[in-house]
């Protein structure tokens, strides 16, 4: 079982704290990394996440000082080591241009409008983690308790099993 990371990028400390708190239910199986800017996030990906495991889901704020969220997600999408990560954009006001860029070039998987409800964010992240795990992992059983069990169970039932009893 490889270590799978959830990366949160958000410049406002209270909002970042809220995201991390909302995602706590995933903590036993997934490791959450909280970062305050695209730059810091990039460093964490390179020095913490990739050496230890895989980047599973990115929850990223759109408008931040310095590099904005969409540009950071596009960079992740272009890097083969992080292209498979599921990408969620947090945004208060989604302009058309940024939306188009995010969908077309960042492989964006979900928009979350600020403010969000905790259950809503958990459900979205759960769905994206399920998709990531179903696509990238071979042993899905440990995730049944935390992610979308039906979807994973179907995958397990369809997968070829070792037959050499």
């Amino acid at each position, binding site marked *: 079982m490889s270590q799978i990371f959830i990366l949160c990028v958000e410049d406002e400390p209270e909002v970042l704290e809220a995201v991390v708190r909302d995602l706590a239910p995933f903590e036993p199986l997934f490791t959450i990394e909280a970062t305050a800017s695209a730059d810091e996030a990039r460093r964490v990906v390179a020095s913490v996440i990739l050496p230890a495991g895989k980047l599973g889901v990115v929850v990223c704020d759109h408008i931040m000082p310095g590099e904005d969220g969409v540009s950071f997600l596009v960079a992740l999408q272009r890097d083969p080591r992080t292209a498979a990560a599921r990408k969620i954009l947090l945004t208060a006001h989604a302009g058309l241009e940024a939306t188009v860029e995010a969908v077309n070039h960042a492989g964006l998987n979900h928009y979350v409008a600020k403010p969000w409800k905790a259950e809503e964010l958990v459900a979205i992240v759960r769905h994206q983690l399920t998709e990531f795990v179903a696509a990238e992992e071979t042993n899905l*059983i440990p995730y049944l*308790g935390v992610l979308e069990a039906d979807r994973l169970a179907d995958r*397990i*039932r369809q997968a070829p*099993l070792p*037959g*050499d009893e």
Partner: protein
Amino acid sequence: MKAKHTAGIVAGLVGLIAPLFLELPGLNFAGQVTLGIFLMAGCFWVMEPVPIYTTSLLVIFLEVLLLSAEGPLVTAARLPSAPARKVAVADGTPAWEVPTKALKNDRGVLLERPGQAPQSIEAKIVQRNGETVWIQAAGLGESSRVISDPTHWLTTYKPTPYRTFFASLADPVIILFMGGCLLADASVKYRLDRALTSLFLAPMGSAPSMITLGLLLVSATLSAFMSNTATTAMMMTLVMPILAKLPERDPLRIAVVLAIPVGANIGGIATPIGTPPNAIALAALTKQGAHLPFATWVLLALPIVLITLLLAWLVLIWLYPSTSREIQLGFQDRFERTPKAMGMYVVFGLTALLWLTEQQHGISSNIVAFLPIVALPIFGIIGKKEIHNLPWDVLWLMAGGISLGTALRDTGLAEWAVRQVEWSSMGGYAIVAGLALFSFALANFLSHTVTVTLLAPIAVTVGATSTEISGFSLANAMVAVAVASSYGMSLPISTPPNAIAMGTGVLETRHLIRAGGTIGLIGIALTLFMARFYWPLFLK
């Protein structure tokens, strides 16, 4: 490539070639080749430099190339023969001139017969002329040819047609197993497995110890008809979401995750199609002309299955007592009522009924197994997808073992091997017990199918001399070997259901060793008991 793989390949190739250079009195060249194939397959199956089913395919290929009548080796090694020439008539009996080297111990010659093994005929020497000799022998005629090299290996080995080796891929027991697989696939497709699980677990209530018992029983019941691995995977998908709701430190989590593979491993013993080792044992028995009906197997196996399940339950609740008062399973799966699902129930029920009443109607379970293979696709209950998804690797793995058995018998290697040991000095039961213990020991480390594949020929060879050994029954030995292999479940590598249980992340290896080891030892002890007191009642 890992060092172990390299070692496996080297050991396998040495095993293949070494017998050709050894002095093995009484074993002909074909037997030496077979011994080589057997040793190579053994090394490959144990060390796994290549996947085990590919070793099976290699076995069949080598047999066809090196042993079959149509293979290049036998075709190239034609028996040398010479014509018998009529020379003179002394006292009214014709004499024949043949090469001196055609004489066998100065007593007779081998007469060539097209399409058949040479016939040994007695001959009286009339006159020796150096290179040739004049003989008188009944059976020689104008167009007769004698074998000019009576020590040639082909005089004692009648090559097996290559069809026989290929036929192992469709051996009746393979068909039996395939029928079982298709039934299982159809059950999974229409969620019969989940519905049965809900049905069985509902009356168990919410007490943790009863739930553990329920899971053991359901896993065992399903794996009696499905593969142990598929059963374990399915059950895990059902229980893992529930485990997530239990307190992290509750030992019940461990008990539940252990109950499923343990139940599945034990349940596989119950029927001939429960797990491949059973089918391999049956195939070996059938080759020896001792057919074991489906219902007889169930009659033999069911008591030990039930007793082990009960003891396994006690072991699990004793080792891992729950700290929770109750858990709600909340399984809500219902039986599907669509026409296709109903059709599947009918085919399943009819097949199971015919399997269990074999002694009443006399139709072999191997033939009955073709009913679901035909009926399920005809009624569109399963389609091409399920047929493509059949576990071909398992079927081929089994076929390799079956064809190896054929070669051992046809080349005389089996008979030769028996003569190397003073079997009659041992008690019949001691041999059965020894084989069962060996099977159990190997199965903890090897694939159970491979274990039985390697041990079946040994049991069969001993069985060939069984008349001399009191208390030895080949059927008893084969059942014991197959049952014992299923109890090899103390390590994550012992069998795929264990590997799946380890993959949940709930278990540590020591849990598996403690519970699986204890239950396995109980199982092998019961096997030895059954082989002594119960199975002989039904197996002569």
